[in-house]
């Protein structure tokens, strides 16, 4: 029997009111507009870049958790793999930045495929445990392979200062320019995710989330569907990782830790799993909270953790999901 994760998404569900349909149709341009304005609305450039990168990671994660109903606790592995491979490709092989990014995304995607292949063999609650354990495997492998990854010290020495786009040199040490360069990739990924959600496959993953047994009886190969969703989600995560590497020019080992995996889960849930804007809203809320709370205490995690617990208990649809539901309720069902 498949337990439907019905406490999850509420967005994009019929009956559709006209404003909701319009919001869905314009979701990519609206997101890009918001991202364009972000550096000027937030207290710091650094915060804006982080929202961009972690927001993208959460968007990819949401494809799996929010839309396919699979609670992975190992997404740090693909994020980290993207970052490490990009850094290694630039620093140790001297690859140009774009080729390095491609390699990072491809490697992260391949890793996601392998992890997915193993973890999807298990059912239900096992899935979360196995993804967590396998991401720990990646963490300890990176720790031991220190000649490649720098081990505990992290990966350094691959700073990209200018990038050439069709003969146009952009100085990405300038934070504003860097932000907009990274944003182009994030925007492209958002457009891609939106396309996936509108595609036939987008309907299949929601069907699998709602009722595996029924989806199978309809003629869908549930395992293969999950694997494809897992891999796509890992590819987006790896892309976010390559942006992280370009941004910081170092890759700390901590990027692969359970904290990173957990953070993505928290962001997605805080914002609203299963809604398009939710993950970015969640990343923004999480990082703002971190920023503000750490002004008066270094123990911001206790506040963030408590807020998260309260959300699980009382607002499982997250900020955006709850807002949508409230607006839909006002519009009259």
């Amino acid at each position, binding site marked *: 029997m498949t337990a439907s994760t019905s406490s999850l998404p509420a967005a994009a569900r019929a009956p559709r009111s006209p404003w909701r349909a319009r919001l869905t149709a314009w979701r990519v341009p609206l997101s890009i507009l918001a991202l364009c304005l972000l550096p000027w609305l937030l207290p710091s450039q650094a915060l804006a870049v982080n929202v961009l990168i972690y927001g993208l990671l959460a968007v990819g994660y949401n494809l799996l958790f929010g839309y396919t109903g699979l609670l992975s606790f190992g997404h740090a592995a693909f994020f980290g793999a993207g970052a490490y491979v990009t850094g290694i490709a630039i620093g140790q092989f001297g690859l140009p930045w774009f080729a390095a990014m491609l390699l990072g995304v491809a490697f992260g995607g391949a890793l996601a495929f392998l992890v997915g292949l193993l973890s999807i063999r298990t059912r239900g609650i096992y899935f979360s445990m196995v993804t967590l354990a396998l991401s720990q495997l990646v963490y300890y492998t990176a720790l031991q392979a220190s000649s490649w990854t720098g081990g505990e010290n992290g990966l350094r020495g691959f700073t990209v200062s200018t990038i050439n786009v069709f003969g146009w040199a952009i100085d990405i040490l300038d934070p504003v320019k860097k932000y907009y360069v990274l944003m182009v990739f994030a925007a492209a990924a958002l457009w891609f995710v939106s396309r996936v959600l509108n595609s036939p496959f987008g309907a299949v993953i929601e069907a699998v989330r709602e009722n595996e047994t029924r989806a199978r009886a309809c003629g869908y190969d549930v395992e293969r569907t999950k694997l494809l969703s897992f891999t796509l989600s890992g590819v987006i995560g790896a892309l976010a990782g390559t942006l992280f590497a370009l941004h910081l020019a170092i890759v700390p080992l901590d990027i692969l830790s359970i904290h990173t995996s957990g953070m993505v889960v928290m962001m997605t849930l805080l914002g609203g799993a299963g809604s398009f804007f939710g993950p970015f809203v969640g990343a923004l809320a999480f990082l703002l909270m971190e920023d503000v709370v750490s002004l008066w205490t270094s123990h911001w995690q206790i506040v963030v953790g408590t807020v*998260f617990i309260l959300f699980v208990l009382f607002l499982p649809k997250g900020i955006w999901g709850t807002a949508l539901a409230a607006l839909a309720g006002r519009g009259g069902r």
Partner: protein
Amino acid sequence: MDAELIAMQLFSGIALGAILIMVALGLSIIFGMLGVVNFAHGALFMVGAYAGLWVASRTGSFWWGLLVAPIAIGLFGILIERVLIRPLYGRSVDDPLLLTFGLGYVLVEAVRIVFGSDGIPFQTPPELSGVADLGIGFFPVYRLFVVGVVAIVLVLLWLGLEKTKFGLIVRAGAKDPQIMRVLGVDIAKVWLLVFGLGVGLTALGGVLAAPMRNVNPEMGALVLAEAFVVTVIGGMGSLLGAVVAGLLVGVAISMTALVAPEMATIVMFALMAAVLLVRPQGLFGKKSRA
């Protein structure tokens, strides 16, 4: 490589496995009964170690720490079940998992606030330090002690499950929760106790492990992963599976450390991957828990 070294390493593995058994058993009992995967389990292990440390330093006796900490943390577990987890029954199975993950996050930070971020060495109690000659080699007394304590706990647990009414209810309930309602058992009370028991076991593991590991707020993360590996290998909800897989993983880690130390942590994950490929339900798991 001489036989004595291998024997010693094998024994280290059993001692390590004994700790893993405590953690994985707690996890498995809670899951078997409540259907909840406790993601705060690693953090509670860490809290158990700190509680043992604190009680021992206050009373000047390791023994008080060993006795008091698991009980206190077990009671804390009961509180957690009552206040935080109970409201989530009937909702998606992912919700308790998410909540306990957040709880683990909070616990780690709370311990940082109280005890600081750095690790604290935990002295092996003098009466348990040193080595003992067992004829086939010299073994650290403390590790022998750990294996002994875990063996006693396992026997008590087994007796409790097999011979008491509470045990009967737990075993029946793990097989089929519907039966509980039919029999008119106050299921809420049983869940409360089982959650407390499971948390108490991991806290005991924490106290026992404290003199063998560096006690620090982050120590729970690896333990949680280890417990998951053991549970996946053994089969979720199977107590025998937790025991066998715990020993297997412990020995695998310490034997690998002998030949290739850098692979020691990695080998258990490889073991898990192999089991998943051959027998996704785990060595002692039932085919599907529908």
